[in-house]
């Protein structure tokens, strides 16, 4: 199978859905001429024109609000918000409108809005590197996707665009230029289906986004030492495929959840809660969450590395729990 980058995979998803459906359009800062900060929308302006690929002023709140209004009236907007940290300036229309209107209208209106954001620490400091997925997981009414591979990125983005609910689509800066197999032919990936990235029978490691790569690195190392770890990527956090995780835990009896977001109050704690709820009897040891330190993210490389989990942290924790 051909290999393309995560970035190219996202671009293909956008291109395919925009070709198919005139109601799909994308707005964002520098998504047009500039091609997007990470080049995801490169070439799309030329193909689809300025009415469908629109550069916006730096007005995140109005951009999301515009997306809500357009979604309510029959369009399928994609709003590109550079960095996930910037959602802090546009939470009102996300939380109080996009997430709520379907519910408070008993489904009489729908908000098929995709908000593309990028997260993850890359040495840019605290307001350009956070992982804030838990904010959205905690806001009822949103769906949250967090792909870790080019294949997942493409299939999930297509599902996000064609679905009828608001989606926070969280990309990762350090994944944009990683390659992976993506078929030429069209496909989609349904929300709420976890992917077992590596099978194993002694340990379940649930990881998200960039941490899936770290978990796989760790699993490879552990394999050499005779420890068989299963690595699961939920791919979407809302809806969450808890069943696949629970089935794995029933097999392995041990669970670690790894994410780049702060450990406290994160999706890891939520996954542990749900596993304890459903499979307490299967657990041999208390499940663990490995997340970033509970700090605003620092700039200096050694500090940033100390804050964000890595394969080493995963290996150490697995060994402690074996």
């Amino acid at each position: 199978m051909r290999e393309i980058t995560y970035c190219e995979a996202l671009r293909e998803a956008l291109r395919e859905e925009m070709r198919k459906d005139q109601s799909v359009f994308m707005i964002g800062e520098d998504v047009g001429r500039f091609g997007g900060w990470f080049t995801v929308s490169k070439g799309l302006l030329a193909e689809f024109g300025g009415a469908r690929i629109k550069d916006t002023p730096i007005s995140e709140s109005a951009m999301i609000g515009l997306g809500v209004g357009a979604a309510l009236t029959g369009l399928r907007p994609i709003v590109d918000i550079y960095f996930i940290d910037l959602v802090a300036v546009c939470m009102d229309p996300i939380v109080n409108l996009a997430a709520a209107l379907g519910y408070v209208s008993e489904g009489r209106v729908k908000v098929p809005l995709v908000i593309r954001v990028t997260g993850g620490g890359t040495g840019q400091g605290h307001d350009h590197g956070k992982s804030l997925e838990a904010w959205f997981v905690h806001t009822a009414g949103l769906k949250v996707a967090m792909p870790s591979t080019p294949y997942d990125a493409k299939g999930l983005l297509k599902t996000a665009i064609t679905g009828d609910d608001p989606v926070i689509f969280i990309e990762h800066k350090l994944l944009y230029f990683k390659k992976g197999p993506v078929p030429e032919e069209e496909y989609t990936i349904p929300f709420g289906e976890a992917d077992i990235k590596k099978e194993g029978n002694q340990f379940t490691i649930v990881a998200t986004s960039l941490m899936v790569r770290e978990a796989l690195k760790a699993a490879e190392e552990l394999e050499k030492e005779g420890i068989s770890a299963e690595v699961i990527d939920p791919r979407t956090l809302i809806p969450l495929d808890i069943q696949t995780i629970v089935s794995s835990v029933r097999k392995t009896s041990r669970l670690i959840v790894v994410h780049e977001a702060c450990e406290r109050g994160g999706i890891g704690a939520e996954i542990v809660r749900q596993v304890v709820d459903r499979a307490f009897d299967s657990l041999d040891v208390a499940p663990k969450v490995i997340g970033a330190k509970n700090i605003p993210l620092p700039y200096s490389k050694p500090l940033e590395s100390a804050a964000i989990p890595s394969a080493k942290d995963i290996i150490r924790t697995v060994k402690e729990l074996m």
Partner: protein
Amino acid sequence: MESLRLGNNYFGKRNELDKDKLLEMLRKMYRIRFFEEKGENLYKSGLITGDFHQYIGEEAVAVGACAVLRDDDYIVSTHRGHGHCIAKGGDIKKMMAELLGRKTGYCGGRAGDMHMLSMDIGLLASVGTVGGGISTAVGAAFSSRYRGSEQVALAFFGDGATNTGAFHESLNLASVWKLPVVFVCENNLYGVSLRVSESSGVEDIADRATSYGIPGEIVDGMDVLAVCGTVAEAVSKAREGGGPSLIECKTYRFGPHWVGDPDPSIYRSDEEVQKWKEKDPILVFRSKLLEDRIFKERKLDAVKELVEEEIEEAIEFAKNSPFPDPDTVENYVYHSEREISR
């Protein structure tokens, strides 16, 4: 009648249709007034819960503005939204049922006082966060142009909303993209208790339009025909591709910020309230219709009486409607895969 020279032939000359329209406007103003008055009793008796924000005193704004909109045009409303809903053609039975939290309400009881919406009448949202709905109207305007339709979107908001970032971002974006949206500011002089003079750096909110290169008009918000005329021009301009306008309607809420607001005299004098009540928009409009001999008093009284009956019927309908089933509380969170609310 001078004020009806609206320049867009919406009403045409003073013919039967004009008279129907005028009567309809008066009917809607009464409908708002009595809906709110009766609603207050229901709130005080505990049948309406949460907050109850009355539109009394501001009827000319909603009715004047919506009178020039097409049925398929969009509006976005605020926490003080009952008037907008009625003016855009809302069914008071469904509205009252919504306020009583009943299954038969516009949103099945999930929305309530501050959040009513109905696509049937083009009411896209009522938004409780001040300033939060303005950009939704911009989005609807964008959508209208994108789809090649001639629909216009109109955003209602108060003076307080004009100090939010969302207001400024929205006006700028709409201006840059020349979107068919009309921004209607209901300047009722107070954001809850804070006077406009204490919250805004400009005396007239309409002046803020200058920053965005769009027209800013001031209109007497107690005169329904004046509102109608000014909004008609802005709507025509927007529909013809001329871009957005900001219209500041100088108006006043006769009652407290919400019905539970214990004592508005803390921040405004009785004399001031009295002065504004003399400009009661319903009385002003009624006098005009009588002075110009368009209708006889008897005819206008009949309208009023009929509305009073309608409101009673709406209350009966709401009271006799069932509450939503608590077992459905987790329904409708998502459209696709509805079962996944956990």
